[in-house]
């Protein structure tokens, strides 16, 4: 007998509990014979007592929702988050901060969404669940690059909240802001807008790269190609197995060189546990979203081919 068996052997169903249960089951069997729907009785004893107030509240909410066009209010996403590692998944978030749509943009993402139900959860909880699952299934490892890309009126707040979620692994985390034009363009290529943003950035450096090519690349590989094009391999970063660049996962601040990426989307920040990037003096001008100047740290050349993200937030 092992230690756990010893420690749990004292846990037994009491004779009273067994007898009560059998009496309860006999009553249910009798009710069933009387023609009642036993299925509906499962737990009725408990529910009637404990859930009556909740049921009443739910009814009130239902009437309110029906009366005020609630479905539109609840079911319409106002923000979008693209979560890309290798699985690419987009979440639509309503005004209440709850997930109202979840779409996968590759097979891995599809498999995950079949297993993890995210709808109607508060988005931080949904993302947390997703990351836990991806870590369990080895999609998200210490060497992975996890990229959150946000489209919202409150993109910065959402991005910061996402970056604050501790990754179950020591994966590198990046957050970006994009826009709906970029999303529509991405969807025309059957790609998440997060990955498409990375493709756009890469294509700004390397005109020969195709969307199809990027479909099969992980975010780490994409980022590695981008870094390669930038020619910043010698900034103290270290490449990782799947192509991530070390300065995203490394400790300490991002270097000047790091922030030189030409990007019409905005890099909001790095996971707090990984690195800290101070905002540029004077904050982040809203108009910069529509420019081709990277907002974080700035100082780089704009990328003429980086056309995605013309919409404003």
């Amino acid at each position: 007998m092992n230690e756990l068996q010893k420690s749990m052997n004292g846990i037994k169903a009491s004779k009273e509990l067994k007898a009560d249960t059998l009496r309860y089951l006999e009553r249910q069997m009798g009710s069933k014979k009387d023609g009642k729907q036993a299925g509906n009785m499962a737990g009725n004893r408990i529910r009637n007592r404990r859930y009556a107030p909740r049921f009443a509240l739910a009814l009130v909410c239902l009437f309110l929702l029906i009366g005020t066009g609630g479905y539109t209010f609840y079911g319409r996403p106002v923000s979008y988050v693209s979560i890309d590692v290798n699985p690419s998944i987009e979440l639509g978030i309503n005004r209440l901060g709850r997930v109202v749509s979840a779409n996968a943009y590759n097979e891995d993402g599809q498999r995950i969404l079949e297993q993890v139900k995210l709808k109607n959860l508060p988005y931080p909880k949904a993302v947390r669940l997703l990351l836990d699952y991806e870590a369990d299934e080895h999609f998200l490892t210490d060497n992975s690059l996890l990229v959150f890309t946000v489209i919202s009126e409150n993109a910065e707040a959402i991005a910061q909240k996402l970056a604050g979620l501790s990754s179950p692994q020591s994966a590198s985390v990046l957050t970006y802001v994009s826009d709906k034009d970029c999303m529509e363009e991405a969807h025309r290529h059957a790609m998440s807008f997060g990955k498409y943003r990375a493709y756009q950035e890469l294509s700004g450096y390397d005109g020969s790269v195709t969307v199809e090519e990027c479909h099969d690349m992980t975010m780490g590989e994409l980022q590695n190609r981008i870094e390669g094009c930038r020619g910043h391999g010698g900034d103290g970063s270290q490449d990782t197995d799947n192509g991530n660049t070390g300065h995203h996962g490394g400790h300490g601040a991002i270097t000047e060189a790091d922030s030189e990426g030409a990007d019409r989307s905005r890099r909001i920040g790095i996971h707090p546990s990984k690195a800290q990037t101070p905002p540029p003096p004077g904050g982040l001008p809203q108009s910069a979203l529509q420019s081709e100047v990277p907002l974080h740290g700035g100082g780089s050349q704009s990328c003429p081919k980086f056309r995605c993200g013309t919409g404003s937030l």
Partner: protein
Amino acid sequence: MKSAEDMNRVVEEYADMVQRICFVHLKNHDDTEDVFQNVFLKYLLYEGSFENGEHEKAWFIRVTINACTDWLRKLSHRKYLPLEIIAEESEIQDSSSGEILEAVLQLPEKYRNVIYLFYYEEYTAVEIAKILGRKENTVYTWLSRAKEILRRQLGGEWA
């Protein structure tokens, strides 16, 4: 519809196991009773058949875990109980056993399941994967992480 004899048999055979799984999840006897009875009610209403005793046992494990998860989702519960209460609830006299149980109860839910099934019910990782409907690799990962947590808390000899 199951017969009264059949209900007597399954209550006698699985009551302790159902009680242990409920305890591992709910951490106290008070909440256990309703879930306990619900599990056997589900059996009463179940119209499928089982290939053999092992299949039936695995069904009870799966249904009990699901019932506990549903219960916890619906109600806000205490996540932690002091050692004395755990010992009292589980009728533990030996303090080292109490520590082990306390450490197991503090594991995240998914780790608790695999540790219980692996060490108490002595299922293999492959069998646990089938019962829980997860990949074998996932179960191996959970087992390894759970063991590591227990090893850190209880010392190198454990796990």
